[in-house]
């Protein structure tokens, strides 16, 4: 926490001087992606305007990042895991209008992801779909939805599946309750859960961001793990936007907008796909089709309305997640 704060202060100090510095406040797993994208955009911007651009990147948990911006970290753009976090910036700090999500195409989510299963080599417990996760001898690893944005996507994906298959809310509740009874460890963040599953050898299946799962299968020893795509999962839409008050103050409005729009360009989409995010562009998706497992996806809006109501119903104090553990 303190580290992030100091980092933020350093970034803050440096943005105050050069107007062509852009601060992108993001969440943990986008580090590699934005490093690559920033370079590409700087080149593109230089060619277009002749202006040099410097980027500052800040990464931490999505909620913690939103709090930093609310408390005064002067982000030019925010690229977070949940629109709930950006909503909070709009609501609590009034740094951007509440309709921010309609300002860019595709709900302001230039790339998407989903929730998949990571299992050990050979899939010893023969896990094929969500139903296998509630069997009594299966251990499921997921982070804590109270502290992790990724874990909230996991929870909603499981809920959406159960609701579709078993029709009633009560049965869906019963389903996720049984699922969470199979969870031996609740880490506070997505990376922590990956470590628990991969390094400590705990659990039979990890619920993970698709991009994290792909990264794990490639970086942590090929052949040790494999991805299982469930029959149905959630379309995770990590949103991006510029922070109006801050870009006006820094005089970076134009470049911040161009930066985010460039995420939708052919090059931006390709870099996203290379970093295991699902691109919105049809032809780039076609090009990288093989790396993404085939999953039927539902949107958060179609089942839960919006993040505000989902957060309230499931994850706030006394919500469904608390009820699972208080019985």
């Amino acid at each position, binding site marked *: 926490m303190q580290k992030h704060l100091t980092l933020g202060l350093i970034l803050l100090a440096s943005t105050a001087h050069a107007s062509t510095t852009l601060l992108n406040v993001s969440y943990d797993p986008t580090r590699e992606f934005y490093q690559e994208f920033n370079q590409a955009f700087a080149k593109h911007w230089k060619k277009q305007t002749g202006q040099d651009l410097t980027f500052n990147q800040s990464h931490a948990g999505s909620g913690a990042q939103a709090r930093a911006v609310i408390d005064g970290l002067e982000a030019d753009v925010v690229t977070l895991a949940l629109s709930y976090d950006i909503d909070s910036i709009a609501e609590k700090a009034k740094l951007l209008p509440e309709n921010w999500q309609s300002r860019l195409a595709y709900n302001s989510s230039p790339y998407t992801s989903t929730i998949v299963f990571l299992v050990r080599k050979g899939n010893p417990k023969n896990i094929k779909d969500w139903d296998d996760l509630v069997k009594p001898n299966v251990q499921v690893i997921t982070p804590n939805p109270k502290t992790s944005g990724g874990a909230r996507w996991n929870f909603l994906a499981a809920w959406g599946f159960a609701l579709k298959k078993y029709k009633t809310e009560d049965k869906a509740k019963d389903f996720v309750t049984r699922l969470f009874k199979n969870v031996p460890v609740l880490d506070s963040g997505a990376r922590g859960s990956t470590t628990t599953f991969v390094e*400590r*050898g705990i659990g039979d299946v990890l619920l993970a961001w698709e991009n994290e799962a792909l990264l794990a299968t490639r970086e942590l020893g090929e052949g040790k793990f494999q991805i299982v795509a469930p029959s149905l999962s959630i379309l995770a839409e990590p949103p991006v936007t510029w922070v109006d008050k801050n870009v006006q103050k820094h005089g970076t409005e134009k470049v911040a907008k161009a930066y985010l729009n460039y995420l939708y360009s052919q090059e931006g989409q390709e870099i996203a796909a290379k970093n295991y995010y699902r691109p919105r562009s049809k032809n780039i998706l076609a090009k990288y089709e093989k790396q993404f497992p085939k999953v039927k996806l539902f949107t958060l809006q179609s089942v839960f309305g919006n993040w505000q109501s989902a957060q309230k119903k499931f994850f706030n104090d006394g919500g469904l997640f608390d009820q699972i*553990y208080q019985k």
Partner: protein
Amino acid sequence: MLQVLKPSRGHILPGYRLTLFYTLFYLLLIVLIPLGGLFVKTASLSWTAFWEVILTPRVLASFRVTFGSALVSALINVVFGLVTAWVLVRYSFPFKRPLDSLIDFPFALPTAVAGITLTSLLAPSGWVGQHLEPLGIKAAYSPLGIVLALTFIGLPFVVRSVQPVLEAVGKEVEEAAESLGASRGQVFLRVILPEILPALLTGFTLAFARTVGEYGSVIFISGNMPMKTEIVPLLIVGKLEQFDYTAATALAVVMLVVSFVLLLLSNHLQSLANRRLGTS
């Protein structure tokens, strides 16, 4: 031995007013303002709302976990910290100096590093954990794991409190007691223990107060299961993730008050210890 200094005109310390002013200012800036902010934030909750935050089963369970494991680990450290201090003071052996410095290691190490290291050791796949697993002992991801992490963090507090006092007791006292016919047990119980007891209690409260607030080492090893191994600091982080600042500060205030009471107690004990040494 102790000379009573009579305050003459003015004060003993040169620049008394200046230093006092500086001390108060510094305390205000570094300690009182941040802590005051905590109370101000909590004050926006009504009493009923405050108790509603504190008295939910999940929060109460986490208070039990936090205070319970801190208490157990502090008690463990009292016993083994005393033995460690005893060995370091009374015996000489090879590598005593490096071993003595090693005691401070938990002070210096980032607690998250301690937590990650302990977890990888004690997890069922770890060096130690794989031998505990067949015995049916679950070390990582259980209350035992929390106690072990807190014991690691708390050790130096007991050792460093007891060590100087034990040094001051001196071997002569023991020898005198023995020459008067006291047994080893009597010497320890009636001569040494009364001398070091206040220091031991101080070490206990310090270790307890420190480990109650521990976050970094515990979140990795505890498994963070609600109602079972969830600690209060984790709940605070959870509240912050919901942007529920006031509820988070309410929990923080409870922790703060408890820690403050403990530290008051510790200070009191310390002064007791000093008085004892002064008069002996």
